[in-house]
Structures are given as structure tokens and as C-alpha cells.
């Protein structure tokens, strides 16, 4: 999940073009992650040191780790830690970009540094998001500042994203959320969560994307906006909201919900709009509290 966010960041900040990103995304499936990229990502080495070790490797038949330890850029335990560390998705992307010469080690180092700075991310948070910690990713990317239900809504969004990953597609990311006074939906399902917290939740999408989403959840190919397509997206929302109720119940907040409904081109008032990008198109999660 984080690799989608990192790829989008590189694109938005013009580190690379859309076609370079697409080529790298394809290439990353077969990429062999190298120690230099891992060491820069972990902040153990800078790009200049990694380049020097690469230069040494052209003259001496030794591994990157051995040379980095000899040059005192890395400690042996750091090499071991890096070699046994998880192969995070965004690193595969970065390695693919480096292999394709779309990006240098220096640029990668700069991109990581600027990324942390832009989102004001601590080392601890960076460690969490690169492990695809959905709660931390939503905490960083979704801005509900000043909302009295900020924690509860972020918890809701994180659960929603986890269910998207579980049932629809793991290649998903959110775009910037907004709050609007009025919003006209395309094809939407809605469900109310009620009691001490009152939220009206919606999944909204254009017809084509709505049907594709429905097909994914139903695990069968649906071709048009028929009753099964409406039912499938409605059931996804119902499942998500039911699990939200269970989570809240576990922390002592008893909520209830109403049956979901489907509608088209309806204007709704005062809502958060969170665009969610999936490989087959964009859906929107709308949340208004009553």
C-alpha cells in the first residue's frame, strides 16, 4: 500500500514521469533489492557512500556489505539487520527506478528526505508506514483537524481501507480529502451508524467503477448496474460498518446501524469526501456526521 503512496509522491513532485513510473511498477515484480538502497532507506548510509562502495565493487570482488563495513560506513550488525529486513514495496519500486536509470541513489536519498519533511514524519512513523501500517498511513494522509470525531472517523477510514485491501484490491491509496457543504453523488450506497456517534457513510462511484467494485466483492463478473451490483457494494459497506460497530463495542461504545440504501445523483449536505484510487478506477468514501 505504501508503495502506491510513494509512487504518487514521486510523480507529484516530478521526480519521474507517468510512463517511467508504469515501467518501473512492471519491472519491480522481478527486481533484486540491493543493500545500497536498503541502507539509504534506513538512514545508515548516504547516497555518496553507497556510490563509493559501488565504485569499489568494480575493482574488488567483494560484496557491498563487506566493503561498507571495511570503509566503516556500516557496522556488521547493521548489514545483518538490513539483509534480514522486510522487503518493503516502495524499496522495490525505488530499486526498479534505479535499475532503469530513471533515478540515481542521490535522488532516492533526497526523495526519502523530502518526503519525510513534507509530511512531518518521524523515524518511528516512517518505519510504521513502510510496513503498510494502515492506521498510521491514514493518520498522516487524512486531515480532519478540528473535528470532534477525528479519532473515530480516522479509525473508520483505516478499517475501510483494510477491508478494501482484504476484499477488493491491495493496490490502493487515498487522495487528499476535502470537506464540502454540498455534494452530488453518481451511484452511491449509504448506511447510517447511530447512537452516541451518528455517521452517515457512503460509497460513491461512477457507474462503470461501481460495477467493477461490485464484481470484485461478489467474486463474479457483473456487467451492468443490476440488483446484484447494488447489493454487492451495499453488502461491502454493511460488512465494514458491522465490523466498525464490533470494534467500537470492544472499547465500550455501543453503536447501531440501519439497513443500507442505494441511490443515484442525489445531493447530500456537509460531508467529507475521501477519493480512493484503485487500479480499475476511483471510488469515494463520503462521511457526514449528523
Amino acid at each position: 500500500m505504501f508503495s502506491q503512496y510513494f509512487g504518487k509522491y514521486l510523480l507529484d513532485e516530478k521526480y519521474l514521469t507517468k510512463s517511467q513510473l508504469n515501467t518501473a511498477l512492471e519491472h519491480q515484480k522481478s527486481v533484486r533489492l540491493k543493500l545500497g538502497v536498503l541502507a539509504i532507506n534506513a538512514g545508515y548510509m548516504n547516497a555518496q557512500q553507497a556510490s563509493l562502495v559501488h565504485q569499489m565493487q568494480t575493482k574488488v570482488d567483494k560484496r557491498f556489505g563487506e566493503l561498507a563495513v571495511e570503509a566503516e560506513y556500516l557496522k556488521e550488525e547493521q548489514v545483518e539487520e538490513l539483509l534480514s529486513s522486510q522487503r518493503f514495496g516502495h524499496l522495490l519500486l525505488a530499486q526498479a527506478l534505479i535499475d532503469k536509470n530513471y533515478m540515481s541513489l542521490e535522488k532516492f536519498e533526497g526523495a526519502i528526505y523530502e518526503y519525510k519533511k513534507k509530511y512531518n514524519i518521524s523515524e518511528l512513523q516512517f518505519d510504521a508506514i513502510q510496513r503498510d501500517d494502515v492506521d498510521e498511513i491514514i493518520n498522516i494522509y487524512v486531515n480532519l483537524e478540528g473535528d470532534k470525531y477525528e479519532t473515530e472517523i480516522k479509525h473508520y477510514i483505516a478499517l475501510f481501507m483494510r477491508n478494501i485491501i482484504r476484499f477488493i484490491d491491495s493496490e490502493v491509496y487515498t487522495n487528499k480529502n476535502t470537506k464540502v457543504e454540498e455534494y452530488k453523488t453518481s451511484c452511491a450506497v449509504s448506511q447510517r451508524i447511530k447512537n452516541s456517534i451518528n455517521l452517515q457513510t457512503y460509497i460513491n462511484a461512477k457507474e462503470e467503477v461501481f460495477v467493477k467494485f461490485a464484481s470484485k466483492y461478489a467474486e463474479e463478473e457483473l456487467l451492468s448496474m443490476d440488483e446484484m451490483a447494488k447489493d454487492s457494494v451495499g453488502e461491502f459497506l454493511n460488512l465494514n460498518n458491522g465490523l466498525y460497530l464490533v470494534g467500537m463495542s470492544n472499547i465500550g461504545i455501543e453503536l447501531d446501524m440501519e439497513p443500507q440504501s442505494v441511490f443515484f445523483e442525489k445531493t447530500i449536505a456537509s460531508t467529507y469526501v475521501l477519493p480512493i484510487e484503485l487500479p480499475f478506477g476511483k471510488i469515494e468514501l463520503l462521511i457526514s456526521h449528523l
Partner: protein
Amino acid sequence: MTESSLKILVCDDSMLIRKKLKEVLKSCGYGNVSEAANGQEAIDIYKESNPDLVFMDIIMPFKNGIEAVKEIIEFDKDAKVVMASSAGTKEHVKEAIKAGAFEFVQKPWEKEQINKILVNLK
């Protein structure tokens, strides 16, 4: 009673869930399954066909699953009802058991969970 003769009623307002549960039941050897899309329909079908087992959702339009279970148990105190809902909050589970359900299955359920209930019922 042989497996194949067991009459099962699946009540859920989602046609997708009804379809999937029917498929699971069929794959476990239970083909005699009828459907209801809300609590009232389930009560009507129960009174008419007296099924051996009911799978009942909770959040449904017209009449919810808890109310439906109460009415079914009133009609037949030996009715066997399994609540199957995504909203498995402590409160809902308590209400369901109090209403007379003998089991609660949290959605999304797995085939093994459904099969276990059927095996235990024998």
C-alpha cells in the same frame, strides 16, 4: 434425519449473502434451502414450512433479525436459529441469545464455521 433432508432457511436482506450461503450449504451436502429477504418473510416461511435450522441476519429492513427470532421462538420454542451478522457487537450477541438464538456467527464467515454448526446440530 439424514443430511440431505435437513430443511434450512437463510434470511438476509443481501441477495449476494443468500447466494453465497446457499452455495456453502450445498457444498456441505445441504441442498434443501429456502430464502427470506427480511425478518417478516422469515417468520412467514418458518410458519409455513417449519425448517430445521435458520440462519438469520440482524440488520434488515421491515423487520430486523432479533425481532424475527423472538417471534419464531414464540411460535416454536424448539426452533434452531443461528444469527449471522457483521454487527456482532456485545449488545447484539446478548440480544440474539436472549431472543432465543443458539449460535452467533460473525460475518464474513468461513465455510468451516458453517460446516461446524451443521455438524454440531446432528
